[in-house]
């Protein structure tokens, strides 16, 4: 049975940054589970080693590094054939947070996102183990300062509270035991380049500790395995799959739905792509609630705008606008990441979106984008503009507003029709929804 056009359009928005009409139409000929499999197959994507910016602090300026690493991500998100890879990198960036403000070295933040990119759809346990000992995380949550006799609990606590279980699933004694298990896992000194993970046996507490009722000579990675694969596995699977559902479908999923996803995660060997497949194949994913359940985050919004208008990061420098909209790339506000929906709606964010949309329309206008608008019948001109920006089911209100705009332009100064339509399409509620 072929798939519905609007369902496929929705899937491409959520699994990526929005599809164009021809690619959506091509996919409608496939069965839904096959469409899902296809968008999860990242093999056509260029290797992550391609186009890596120079982030060596001795060879570049701060700005060059920041622009280089942000443009790299915007461009990959905008252009790779299977953007689920970039979408998952963004998901993990907002869950397993580190931030440039504290890590303070661009290449270390970049390496973390590269890990999320390469391992983000695979084995979640492997991903967590790798994340735990990357320099970015060792710096961001202070485990580098966690030493025998001088504990720093930051990482040990957040791993359970924010990354795997949530409050209520562990005790303060568990935090202390975990912190002791993680002692000695640090990194090379600040004057080395590149800084790398370093285990210092002399700083490690190798006495026995009691973690979640089990007394043993725990080491940090064993703690992580115990959380993700031991008796707490179902809690962790529920926690992580609920985060994934909230990111891809809508916040606060129903408990029964979360149970099903957790079961899929466990039965599928704790792989992220298995959960994604389960999410996208759920009928709830295609429900009205999901369709209107998320607001595009600033990064999703700007990538979609670039993608639909054929403009590049160098044309617009989206990295500055996303910050003004409230989402600085590589720099979440704190260890709990970005919130959703209402967090992205405010006057100051709207001003920033409008400035971005205005800048974009003049760049697009220079490229004669939609330049023939004024030659089309009014309704067609509106329809075509919305279609170009991936708005395939505009509300009657939006259509009426734009139709009235075009009609008025045609009775006054025709030159502003195409640029105005670009600007306005980007500010429609439909385009701002995820």
């Amino acid at each position, binding site marked *: 049975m072929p798939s519905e056009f609007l369902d496929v359009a929705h899937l491409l928005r959520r699994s990526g940054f929005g599809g164009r009409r021809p690619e959506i139409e091509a996919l409608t000929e496939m069965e839904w589970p096959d469409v899902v499999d296809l968008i999860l197959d990242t093999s056509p994507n260029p290797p992550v080693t391609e186009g890596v910016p120079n982030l060596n*602090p*001795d060879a570049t*300026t*701060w700005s060059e590094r920041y622009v280089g690493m942000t443009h790299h991500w915007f461009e990959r998100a905008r252009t790779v054939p299977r953007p689920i890879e970039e979408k998952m990198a963004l998901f993990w960036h907002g869950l397993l947070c580190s931030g*440039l*403000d*504290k890590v*303070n070295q661009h290449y270390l933040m970049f390496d973390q996102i590269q890990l999320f990119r390469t391992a983000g759809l695979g084995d979640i346990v492997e991903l967590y183990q790798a994340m735990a000992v990357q320099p970015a995380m060792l*710096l961001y949550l*202070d485990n*580098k300062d966690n030493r025998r006799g001088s504990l720093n609990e930051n990482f040990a606590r957040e791993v359970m509270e924010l990354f795997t279980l949530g409050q209520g699933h562990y005790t303060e004694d568990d935090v202390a035991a975990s912190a002791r298990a993680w002692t000695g896992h640090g990194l090379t000194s*600040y*004057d080395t380049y590149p800084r790398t993970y370093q285990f210092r046996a002399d700083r490690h507490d190798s006495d026995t500790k009691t973690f979640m009722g089990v007394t043993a000579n725990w080491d940090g990675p064993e703690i992580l395995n115990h959380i993700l694969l031991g008796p707490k596995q179902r809690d962790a699977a529920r926690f992580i799959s609920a985060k994934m559902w909230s990111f891809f479908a809508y916040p606060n999923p129903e408990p029964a739905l979360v149970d099903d996803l957790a079961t899929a995660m466990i039965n599928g060997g704790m792989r992220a792509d298995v959960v994604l497949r389960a999410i996208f194949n759920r009928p709830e994913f295609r429900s*009205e609630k999901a369709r*209107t*359940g*998320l*607001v595009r985050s600033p990064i999703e919004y700007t990538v979609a705008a670039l993608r639909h208008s054929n403009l590049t990061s160098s044309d617009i420098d989206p990295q500055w606008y996303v*910050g*003004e*909209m*409230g989402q*600085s790339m590589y720099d979440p*506000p*704190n260890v709990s990441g970005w*919130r959703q*929906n*209402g*967090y*992205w*709606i*405010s*006057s*100051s*964010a*709207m*001003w920033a979106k409008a*400035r*971005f949309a*205005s*800048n974009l329309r003049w760049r697009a206008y220079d490229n004669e984008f939609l330049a023939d608008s004024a030659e089309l019948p009014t309704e067609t001109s509106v329809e075509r503009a919305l279609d170009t920006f991936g708005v395939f089911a505009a*509300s*009657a*209100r*939006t259509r*009426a*507003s734009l139709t*009235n*705009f075009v009609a008025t332009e045609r009775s*006054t*100064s025709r030159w*502003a029709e195409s640029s*105005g339509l670009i*600007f*306005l399409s980007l*500010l429609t*509620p*439909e385009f*701002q*929804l995820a």
Partner: protein
Amino acid sequence: MNNVPFTSDASTLLPYPQTIEPGDPSPAEIVAALSRPAPSDASSLSRRRFIQAAAASGALASIPTWSVLNRSDVAGAAAGASVGADEGIVVMLTMGGGNDGLNTVIPIGDSAYYDNRSRLAISAEESLQITDGYGLHPNLPSLKQRYDMGQVAVIEGVGQPVDDLSHFTSMARWMSGRLSGVPTSGWMGRHLDGMPNEIPIPGVTVGSSIPLLMLGSKPRTSALPEKVSGLFSVQNDPVDQRQYRAIRDFAGDTGLGTWGNALAGAGPNALDLAGQLRPIYPTDPVRGKVARQMEVIARLINAGIGIRVFSVIWGSFDSHSGQPEQHGDRLAEFDAGLKVFYETLNPQWADRVLVVTQSEFGRRAKDHGSDGTDHGAAGTMLAIGSNVKGGFYGQAPSLTNLTRQDNLIPTVDFRQVQSTVLNDWLAGDAGEIFGSNFESLGFLRAPGTAPGDGGDGGGGPIVVNPTERRNSFVRLYLAYFLRFPDTKGLDYWLTVGDGTIGLGEASLYFAKSAEFRQRYGAVDDARFVELIYNNVLNRAPEDKGFNYWRGVLGDGYSRGEVMIWFSESAENIRATAARVAEYNALTLGS
């Protein structure tokens, strides 16, 4: 005065590597790293909050666009936002990159200064002398004027009680008010956390992100743009108005669920709030970013919407080389900011307003071969205002007994100055904010109205002299069109919108006129600058001016904005005085 104890190794205190020149990050980068985007959750700046602020402080009547507001919004406004007659307002000016205190307030009476600064010393004659032993940098005439009025406290020898030359960690300490640990909040942010919720907008930073200084556990600081154009993308011409109409038409029941409706409603809200802020913003702003920011702040104070703390950050003061020009330019920006600030500030607020400067460190006592100075330790802070007890505070660091890196040894912990501001001016609790108590330096009187001054706390609209306004428009016509205004046209601009339209807004319309576009439309920026020198000022541009204005246009300022600056330049006002008088005689009679 108590000496500040040093610890020997600052690197153990904070996780950042110590970076010392070259390749230092710029102050903007440092501040960016220590900032957060403007909070955009439900409690950030919204139209409702703004209306509450204005309603509660009684500023409604002075802002013409209030008439469009929904009555119920206003009725729900809380009382108590207004800054009371005995409450203080503070403007924190952060000089990023390390300001050279020695060349700001210059110890002209100390021969050791001249020994250390063989290249960069400023002579007593060049300086603007304020006392026997001290002179100000020659680019600080407005500060001198304030000093002479007894309104400037100079606090010498201020620094961190640790030996640290990193911009990052030093700035993090100054902003957080904490010596160690990872900074997550600023001392001013923590103070703002304690402000009652009835004050809708207690803190404002003019810029796009909120610096660590202003971050607390609650979003109490709003980021406002420095230019009116930052409020929304576009200007107010008819084409834009039609687009705004379309954005307004998106709002309503969209059938797109809660979030679709919220997004559709956010457009009109943002437009409305921009419309309400617009009259507060100058439509013919002054030149220069810092001056612009200070002008906006003065006007926000005048509008009386209850803002207690403002923050401005700029730089770079990091003058490793070419210091005379770089440092001179930064101080000139500071002085221009002060000048426009006090010109704009309604006098009835003056007794409640304090301006404080800070920088992460001073600079090396000795200069070096590339006409620069490296990162230093002790610096000089300034506190300016009519309730400042003018004079010198702290203790001047010795210029002969230096640290092993040739730096001035701090004599005052920076937190002592910050505590003085919090306790004596903002009625705060510095002990709680800093976790320890510092003795007041005593450079402040209590904020409030001087006896017999009669201030009422209401604030008021900026009053523009109608004759001056008319003359400005006549000059604008002359500048744009090289002709007198047609009476009908001039009348239109003088009366449209109940006579509230500014020169800046009008200029943007002028710039879109066929007459102007025909004359200048096809030329590039360079030719445009050349033409307006010829046409407006009747002379060829000098190189410096030519390059300056090309740069201004290159920075994204519009030709309409540049036209105003030409039209309202002192040179043009003088040159056109006779023609303006002639026109007035023709149209107004004698």
